[in-house]
């Protein structure tokens, strides 16, 4: 068994057995922590799709997280207040609300991606930031929906056959969606589409000269990544029963980027581990001192400066068959700099 499969299985087993462990230790809090972890892991993995495979450093990924959450929040608000929304009396069914939220995220991704992809480099970082800040301020100005204070939800959405208000069932739903999302992303980066995306990352010029249109592929990746973060936002709204503009703030985008780096860029599973490390550290350090960022800042710095491969890279270090493992883990060769005439 290769190291990669062992890591996969270890992660899966941890997630699967956690509620049992929590029950044994009598720490129901663990389930709640790991639910958060699965949700953030999904958002971080979707960002990794952009950063790690498309070389598109988006600093506005939290916009999707926020929008997904807000659609759930707004529909719940109208449903609870018995206030029709453009003639629609609202619904509490996840099967209706969640696709609606995802549709909104896809539309946002289409517009934001189309406009942002006209730029590249720093300008891309900044324009994605600008769009997410726009959304942040717009959400904050919706005084009807609580403005900066956000919306409190009364209950979680309902899904046939499941009771989402049960902590364990909701947890397993999040884990299942996370696993599904990761499998989908792996298929995606291994497909022709994924190869084109990675080709564009290595050398846009060469890929274009093969007759491929960069914007089409990048835009598709942008929308798909947006859907992943949007789904995470939907789950978060259901988990916390609270949405606020802070979900779309730039600090959230920064957090997601930190998770990707901590876990390992371009590894998909890595960012989930990164999210675990980030949230776990936050939890541990804040038990120790309220100034937890004082310790976390330098720690993040050390990882950025010296630990290029992140947690996943550490785990994979010295894997038995490095050549095969590298070919599979989809890390592009490091020195893929194009020589410019």
């Amino acid at each position: 068994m290769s190291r990669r499969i062992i890591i996969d299985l270890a992660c899966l087993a941890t997630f699967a057995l956690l509620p049992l462990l929590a029950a044994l230790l009598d720490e129901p809090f663990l389930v709640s922590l790991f639910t958060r972890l699965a949700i953030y892991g999904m958002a971080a993995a979707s960002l990794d799709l952009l950063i790690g495979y498309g070389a598109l450093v988006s600093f506005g990924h939290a916009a999707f997280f926020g929008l997904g959450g807000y659609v759930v929040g707004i529909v719940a608000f109208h449903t609870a207040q018995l206030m029709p929304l453009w003639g629609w009396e609202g619904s509490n069914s996840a099967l209706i609300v969640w696709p609606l939220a995802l549709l909104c995220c896809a539309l946002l991704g289409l517009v934001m991606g189309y406009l942002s992809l006209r730029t590249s480099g720093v300008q891309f970082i900044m324009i994605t930031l600008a769009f997410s800040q726009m959304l942040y301020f717009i959400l904050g100005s919706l005084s009807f929906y609580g403005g900066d204070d956000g919306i409190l939800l009364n209950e979680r959405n309902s899904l046939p056959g499941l009771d989402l208000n049960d902590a364990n069932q909701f947890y397993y739903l999040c884990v299942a969606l996370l696993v599904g999302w990761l499998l989908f992303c792996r298929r995606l980066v291994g497909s022709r589409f994924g190869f084109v995306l990675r080709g564009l990352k290595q050398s846009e010029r060469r890929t274009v000269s093969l007759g491929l249109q960069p914007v089409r592929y990048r835009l598709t990746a942008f929308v798909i990544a947006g859907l992943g973060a949007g789904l995470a936002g939907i789950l978060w709204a259901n988990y916390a029963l609270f949405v606020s503009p802070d979900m779309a703030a730039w600090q959230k985008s920064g957090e997601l980027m930190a998770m990707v780096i901590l876990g390992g860029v371009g590894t998909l599973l890595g960012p989930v581990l990164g999210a675990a490390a980030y949230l776990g550290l936050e939890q541990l350090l804040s038990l120790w001192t309220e100034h937890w960022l004082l310790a976390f800042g330098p720690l993040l710095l050390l990882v950025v400066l010296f630990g290029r491969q992140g947690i996943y890279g550490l785990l994979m270090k010295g894997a038995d068959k490095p050549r095969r493992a590298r070919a599979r883990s989809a890390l592009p060769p490091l020195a893929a700099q194009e020589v410019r005439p």
Partner: protein
Amino acid sequence: MLLLEQLLNGLQYSALLFLLASGLTLIFGIMGVINLAHGAFYMVGAFCAAYTAMASGSFWLGGLAALAGSALYGLVIETAIIRRLYNRDHLDQVLATLAVVFFTNELITLLFGRSPPAMPTPEWYGAFVEVLPGLMYPVSRLLFIGAGLLVAVGMWLLINHTRLGMLIRAGADDHEMVGALGVNIGRLYTLVFVFGCALCGLAGFMAAPLLSVEIGMGEKVLITTFVVIVVGGVGSVRGALVGALLIGMVDSLGRAYVPPLLDQLLPAETSGALSAGLLSASAYIVMALVLLVRPRGLLPARA
């Protein structure tokens, strides 16, 4: 009259943005570093100014402390961290400087506590002068505009008419070549970084009595500063000036004219919320529009 007053307010905001953006754009243009920690130096400056002025009772001593404190902290951060980022990609730079922001915010909280300090000001500072017949304007804001103007002229002289400025321009064009000609490029980088930090300190000192001195004040203005340099063209000081003026004026004139305009077009409830949202997002809307037409900004440093 309203228009004139709003123009002056816009100038004051532009001056703040320019003080921050000129340093940031130099740091980016020359070293190629995206420095999210730039706002942290502004905050350090404001805190140094407020606490020194409170302790000594002297307004100007506070200013001196702000400049010195920011420059010193900048020197420490550059030597310890930023220096290692020059050859890294943007993602690393964003995260490493984000880590500096986290760290600095907590450090300041730990040192000074959470309650915002109030900067003592001399009597003349709060006075009003008649700028034009019938238009009274506070001295504090005029001072701010003056500082911005002074720095703009000073920067122009420095960059275009001194040997150091020549090196800075050359470094932005081709730093390897400059290094090969025997210039200590590392020292030039450090100098530019510390200079940018000192400008942040100046901005912090000017802003300390006017705005609230608090944790996170740097981040609030930092993002707008980034918008300014991207709108102006990354790496160009002229661009930073144009961008600062554009964003400052749009903000200030928008505040005066958008709400009444929307009130006429829309019912009161929606227009209030909408104009508040539009105004907060105005800088970002301007940036998105500019980038769509000119993806490299209005006055890019290099063609």
